[in-house]
């Protein structure tokens, strides 16, 4: 991945500031391979859309260079970059029909009329809107407009497709359906996609790799499973999936593991040493709810108890909010096997493996 010759898109030491006082993107280094589906995930204001706009050519990096296919592209205007883009609100041209919207990029490239017709029809068929060419965007539903926007971004066979929260305006069911469709189209035509979203489940569903943005910095860049299971810092742990945290101080370091004394004198926890260096450092422990075991001890060192604050029945599982070691937002998911008969206020015995606890930064 670090080999420049292999990466199709390369961000090199990119800084971006709008006002000369605040950096919205700080020292961004990112390599994207050809055919990859990379998602930039992060809360609003984290710099992910700015990064995308720099790639599309609508913003100029304050420092650094972006390479596309090994060539620097800072000096290339947006209309010569051959990068397709799906905008947040689709940006379909309302005065043109669907077919005219799709022909537009081909017409400005002076492609012959019969070729345009064929390519437009092919693109419309791809998004299953073959018969909608003569309609105007306003006559289509949100999901159909979304597909037209996708077809338009692909019809001129760009080198790369960017998507800026393309599903944000759709309702939940349609959004999930479109996630799969975009993923399938990506699998089928093998185009490189850079996708921006703030929805972590969207990112997990679709991406080969996810770059988690916060505060203008990529916190972690990895595949969805590693991001979820092995977050490298507390932001990623909190942002992706549900996460229980316990704060403490490192008391002992032993190779790849460490022992942490919980704040408030609740005891010692054995954990993986991830983002801490030495004894005496403050740390935040991260445990996924589904890795916490109830009633039967699965570990020698990490046995605790918690009082049930709230039980929420969710069908396939019961979500229990507990007060554990001073944290009353501690979540445990109990599979609904029929054997769980505790009430709110009861004390539960909890335990977890030390491999499932990650000692991260505070």
């Amino acid at each position, binding site marked *: 991945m670090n080999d420049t010759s292999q990466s199709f898109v390369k961000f090199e030491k990119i800084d971006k500031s709008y006002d000369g006082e605040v950096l919205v993107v700080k020292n961004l280094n990112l390599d994207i391979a050809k055919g990859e589906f990379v998602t930039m995930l992060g809360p609003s204001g984290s710099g992910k859309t700015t990064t995308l706009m720099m790639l599309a050519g609508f913003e100029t990096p304050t420092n650094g260079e972006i390479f596309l296919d090994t060539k620097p592209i800072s000096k290339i205007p947006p*209309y010569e970059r051959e990068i397709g883009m799906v905008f947040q*609100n689709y940006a379909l041209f309302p005065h043109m029909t669907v077919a005219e919207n799709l022909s537009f990029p081909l017409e400005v490239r002076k492609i012959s009329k019969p070729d345009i017709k064929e390519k437009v029809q092919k693109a419309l068929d791809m998004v299953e809107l073959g018969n909608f060419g003569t309609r105007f965007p306003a006559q289509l539903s949100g999901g159909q407009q979304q597909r037209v926007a996708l077809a338009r971004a692909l019809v001129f066979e760009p080198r790369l497709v960017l998507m800026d929260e393309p599903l944000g305006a759709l309702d939940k069911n349609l959004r999930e359906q479109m996630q799969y469709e975009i993923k399938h189209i990506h699998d089928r035509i093998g185009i490189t996609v850079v996708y921006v979203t703030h929805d972590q489940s969207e990112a997990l569903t679709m991406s080969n790799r996810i770059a988690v943005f916060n505060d203008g910095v990529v916190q972690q860049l990895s595949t969805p499973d590693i991001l979820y299971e092995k977050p490298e810092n507390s932001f990623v742990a909190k942002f992706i999936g549900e996460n229980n945290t316990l704060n403490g101080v490192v008391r002992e370091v032993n190779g790849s593991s460490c022992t942490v004394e919980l704040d408030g004198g609740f005891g010692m926890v054995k954990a993986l040493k991830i983002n801490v260096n030495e004894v005496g450092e403050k740390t935040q422990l991260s445990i996924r709810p589904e890795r916490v075991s109830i009633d039967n001890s699965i570990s020698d060192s990490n046995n605790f108890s918690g009082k049930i604050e709230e039980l929420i029945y969710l069908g396939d599982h019961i979500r229990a909010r507990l007060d554990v070691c001073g944290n009353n937002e501690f979540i445990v998911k109990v599979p609904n096997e029929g054997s769980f008969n505790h009430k709110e206020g009861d004390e539960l015995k909890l335990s977890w493996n030390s491999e499932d606890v990650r000692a991260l930064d505070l």
Partner: protein
Amino acid sequence: MEDCISTSALLTTDGVPLKQSLKKAERKNKLRAFLLVFPLLLFIIVTFVMPIGDMLFRSVDDSQINGVFPNTFNEYKKWDKEKDVLPPEEVYKALFEELAYGEKIQIGRALTRMNYSKSGWKSLIKTTSRQIKKAVKKDELPNNYKEFLISANEKWADPTFWYAMGQMVNNTTPIYYWNALDRTYDQDQNVVMQDEKRRIYIKTWIKTLKISVYVTIFCLILGFPVAHLLANLPLRYSNLLMIFVLLPFWTSLLVRTTAWIVMLQQNGVINGILVWLGILSDDGRLQLVYNETGTLIAMTQILLPFMILPLYSVMRVIPKSHMRAAQNLGAKPATAFWRVYLPQTIPGMSAGGLLVFVLAIGYFITPELVGGKDGKLIGHWIAYHLKTTLNWGLCAALGAILLGVMLIFYWLYNKIVGIDNIKLG
């Protein structure tokens, strides 16, 4: 239940036909709605429909003179112009009697009307009337009315006067319309052009249309970038700019027009600056006001907000992402503007254009003040005939033509752009 389904008309639960029941339920609402708009309706009828109808009627009305000389005209219609050079004795007799016993005020009004058809009528009848009155007073009714009248004034033997009378014998007349287009009747009742020196209206019509078109084009050229700026600047700047656009709206039209006179006159601000900068010599000061140039400049400035506001309201809702999307798809900025942005502003351009054009074509105060001799538009002549010559027929005809021209433009506009495409805000 069976009955309900089998009959063709649906019934309500109580057995009343559904349609009747619906009508009854809605009657109250309809009545209420009508009562709500009724005052406005009445107002529009009284202040708008009736005056315009009256004006349109006046432009062809010729009944006043027909009320003064009913018998004369009746007999006149029997005159065979092929056979006799002058009308028969009966015409002279009827005229004599109607002048002798007619109401003085009505005759006076009729004389004004007669003079529109041919100048000279007024003095002819006035001198004749005196003779007739004298004869009537002495109780010396003539034996031959024709000879009497001709002896009173020899113009009564001039057939051209009698031919001119032919224009008045009907209750309606197109003469005002022909006058409004610089045409009149010759002695054979053919429509011909006016004398060279009396042709003023066609020239003015063309000037009015020309200036209106120019003002519309200039407003579009000047207004488009301003509206674009307004729509795209950050809020605090655009609000300030908006105040600059709206400020003229809140200032009296007269003040603005006089301000332009101060700016444009030969010793005014603009000439002063140009001379001071050395661009003009002191003797070569430009004539910027009291001519067409002045009218054009002042009207463009005064009508500019009417172009900017509809354009702005349309541009404001065009997402900025459209230009980006177009460029992203491979269009150069100019192409993107031409093919993506501009077509989306058409509703605003056409609304503004129509508004400015319609206002310009009937503009009066500004051209009147800054137009001087050759910057005056058709509104000037309408006011002139309304207030100075009291030729309301011509005044109404000019107004009706103006209305017609606007309707034609509106129709053309609807054909080309479509009236649904208009957007004012």
